[in-house]
């Protein structure tokens, strides 16, 4: 299967000391590996470990060159390349199968497979209007599609429309598209099995192996570790932008990979642990489901004690973000939610807000801020609308006049307290940096004076200094006002440093709730959704030192 033993061969792909910095934020450092023809490389790592940045570099995505390029070299068959657009990468023989389907709904499988590479026939008008006026050669297109599909070893109806295909067929169609490109030497598959049923995933794995035998190399990115171990020749584990381990399936196990993915230096974990006294339950959630696109919550049950900081973690797309959004009424939801002993009617944001709950949304720019409005508006708006704060009542409350002076005062107060860097309270939110925007979002929630505060992805996209400050602020509000805080984050370490207890969400369900002081590996295993019965006592996996 592998040509590696044949040491004379030049590797198809060599990644040599590749690194990347985003605005002074290092996301990738010294990544080295090489890949030979017909080899399958498994790439695993937590969200934010640097997988997508690495793939963006490899694929010449414009975002890389726009942010200052990358360090190190990428060599294809021994020659250095520097792609300026994905099309360069395609020309060099790299194919990418994305996580989201990029199929045209009204095109047949054949048309989708051959999109922009259709077989054409000459006609005299070409002389006048150029090549694009060539007529399509439907018969040859069908032949090529059949051929690509047969290489995959999976039967798709070549005439089925994109919109009407089952999910599995869509995935195969995407791969067939890359196969038809005769020049494809390296195929990057980003979570190809995430949407597939188990049986379909097995077929896919089998056909990928078939492709490898034909000499096509692959980089396989997946969170399903069993697949990675079954399929790949080499496994690379990324963490915090670094390769922490390069290994072979035979030399490792799921648990080792899992712990390598999440494991961190023990000192990094905040040592100060609070002793939570048993307080009453303030929020009780039973069988919650939330229809949030991409973050579906299927059946979640948990309860939060008054005054604690409760973490919600899990991999992207597993539904952790849906929980807060559902309880706050932003996405269609169902189930029983009890707040301070009283049931909450879901699907009405105003109602949720009126129950002394506040929400700092993960989508800062989309939901969290009025980008075109000044800071004072952003901070005061929710409190004004929900609690009639910053409102002067005229004519016995008939007219509710906006109190700009009070808004200014509160805005200046929070600008001061949270160290929001700005030119003044009238600066528009869009002009602030990510960290300062996040502080405005927090201020907006604090002004409401919530008893329960949901904070989602508080540190996403902000620099390290601001991260600490944001987390400290959350902690401080919890301690000062006794507010219960529910933090949702993809970064486990962040949760462990600030929370008392952490729930891990997998496939829309809670796979476990643990004390934040438990070792990281324990959470890692919960995140990967491996059946708990297979997991040996967590303490034993944590034993390894890195």
């Amino acid at each position, binding site marked *: 299967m592998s040509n590696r033993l044949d040491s004379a061969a030049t590797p198809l792909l060599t990644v040599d000391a590749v690194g990347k910095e985003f605005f002074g934020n290092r996301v990738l450092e010294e990544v080295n590996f090489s890949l030979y023809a017909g080899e399958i490389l498994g790439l695993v790592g937590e969200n934010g470990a640097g997988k997508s940045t690495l793939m963006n570099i490899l694929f010449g995505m414009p975002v890389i060159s726009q942010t200052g390029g990358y360090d190190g070299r990428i060599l294809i068959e021994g020659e250095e390349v520097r792609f300026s657009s994905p099309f360069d990468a395609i020309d060099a023989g790299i194919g990418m199968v994305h996580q989201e389907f990029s199929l045209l709904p009204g095109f047949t499988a054949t048309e989708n497979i051959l999109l922009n590479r259709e077989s054409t026939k000459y006609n005299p008008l070409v002389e006048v209007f150029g090549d694009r006026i060539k007529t399509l050669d439907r018969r040859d297109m069908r032949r090529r599609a059949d051929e690509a599909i047969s290489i995959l070893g999976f039967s798709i109806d070549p005439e089925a429309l994109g919109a009407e295909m089952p999910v599995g067929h869509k995935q195969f169609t995407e791969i067939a598209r890359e196969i038809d490109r005769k020049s494809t030497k390296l195929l990057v598959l980003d979570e190809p099995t995430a949407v597939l049923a188990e049986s379909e995933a097995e077929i896919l794995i089998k056909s990928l192996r078939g492709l490898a035998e034909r000499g096509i190399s692959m980089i396989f990115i997946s969170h399903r570790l069993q697949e990675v171990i079954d399929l790949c020749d080499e496994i690379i584990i990324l963490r915090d932008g670094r390769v922490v381990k390069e290994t072979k399936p035979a030399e490792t196990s799921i648990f080792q990979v899992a712990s390598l993915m999440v494991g961190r230096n023990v000192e990094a974990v905040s040592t100060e642990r609070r002793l939570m006294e048993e307080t009453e339950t303030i929020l009780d959630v039973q069988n919650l489901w939330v229809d949030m696109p991409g973050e579906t919550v299927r059946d979640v049950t948990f309860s939060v004690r008054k005054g604690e900081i409760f973490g919600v973690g899990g991999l992207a797309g597993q539904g952790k973000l849906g929980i807060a959004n559902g309880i*706050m009424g*932003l996405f269609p939801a169902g189930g029983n939610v009890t707040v301070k002993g009283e049931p909450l009617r879901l699907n009405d*944001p*105003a*109602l*949720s*807000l*009126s129950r002394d709950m506040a*929400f700092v*949304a993960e*989508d800062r*720019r*989309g*939901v*969290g*801020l*009025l*980008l*075109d*409005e000044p800071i004072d*508006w952003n901070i005061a*708006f*929710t409190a*004004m*609308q*929900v609690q*009639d704060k910053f*409102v002067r009542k005229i004519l016995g409350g008939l*007219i*509710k*006049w*906006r109190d700009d002076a009070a808004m200014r005062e509160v805005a200046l107060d929070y600008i001061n307290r949270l160290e929001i860097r700005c030119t003044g309270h009238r600066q528009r939110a*869009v002009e602030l940096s990510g960290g300062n925007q996040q502080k405005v979002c927090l201020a907006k929630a604090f002004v409401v004076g919530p008893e329960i505060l949901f904070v989602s992805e508080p540190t996403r996209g902000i620099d390290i200094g601001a991260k600490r400050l944001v987390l400290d602020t959350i902690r401080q509000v919890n301690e000062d006002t006794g507010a219960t805080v529910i933090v949702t984050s993809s970064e486990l370490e962040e949760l462990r440093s600030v929370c008392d207890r952490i729930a891990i969400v997998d496939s829309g369900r809670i796979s476990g709730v643990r004390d934040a002081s438990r070792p990281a590996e324990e959470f890692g295993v919960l995140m990967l959704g491996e059946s708990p019965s297979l997991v040996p006592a967590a303490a034993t996996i944590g034993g390894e030192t890195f």
Partner: protein
Amino acid sequence: MSGKFEKFISDFGWPRIIIALFLLLLFASTPFVGVKLDTSISDTLVRVGMNGVLVLAMVPMVQSGCGLNFGLPLGIIAGLLGAVTSIQVATSFDALYQVISSGGSVGVFASALSSVLQSGARGLALFGIALAIALPCAAILGFLYAQILNRVKGEEMMIATYVGFSSVAVMCMAWLLLPFNSPVMVWGYGGSGLRTTISTEGFWRHILSDFGSIDFGNFYFPTGMFIFFAIMVCIVWAFFRTKTGTAMTAAGSNPEFARASGIDVNKMRTISVMLSTVLGAVGILVYEQSFGFIQLYMGPLYMAFPAVAAILLGGASVNKATMANVIVGTFLFQGILTMTPSVINSILKSDMSEVIRIIVSNGMILYALTRKTRVKR
């Protein structure tokens, strides 16, 4: 310094600056081409007063995120209904007054109203009746219109245009069929169906304009109309200073944010559409009292376009508008419309004003539509 200047230019936008300079040039050149400056200024101001409220009617919908109100004809129709009804009332009660003065007896209310209509308050009373009919009609039409717009988010403008057009066509049929019978309004022959233009002379012509107006040689300033316009501007300004107005602005600025803050975005949009439509109705009544004629049938068809162009010329965008945009825009736009015929025509000896109006107003709208707006996720 130069940085500040550049920022000013980019904030204000080149088209606006060019048009403002052009207008200044037109005013400055009046003495050289034999056009009276005082008349020009006076004409411009009258037209600003006439059109101001119609331009103001753009603001609520723009602010709530419904885009430019190309559906303005809907409000205009409500205003027209009020206008023709008030004239019908006047004719009917004038007849009634004849009956009373010749000794006939009628109800207390009817006789009171008919004597009011013979008094000095005739014009105001009739204008009040016109408003009283127009406003509820506009509110109802606006509500229905909002129900459509809430279902077609993102494509409001084109749909608004054609909803406006269709409603004008429906009203064309209605003007033919509605049972009005005042001889000043119906066609002389046939005896049914309203005329295309109806004079408001003897009813409420110049009822606002002439209130405290200044007449000075060639210079005429419609004080009352400007006071009324100022009041309307203040009301809209004040509305956006209230809690509801703030919520409406937020709903337009970022509907997702507003929703997460417990705002019913569709309700805010509905209120804004109703408000815009009501202002449209008021606006056309102000326009007609100054103009002196009610224009029915296809008259309102294209009336949205000058208003849209004016507010954009004033610096508004497709999703943000202020009172300053309204006032500046109306002045610039009406200034161009007034000055080009007189100045350009006396230079070129031909009437190019229509062409310039078309190019300026549509060019302005085109500019606003093609400017990059904030990408929503």
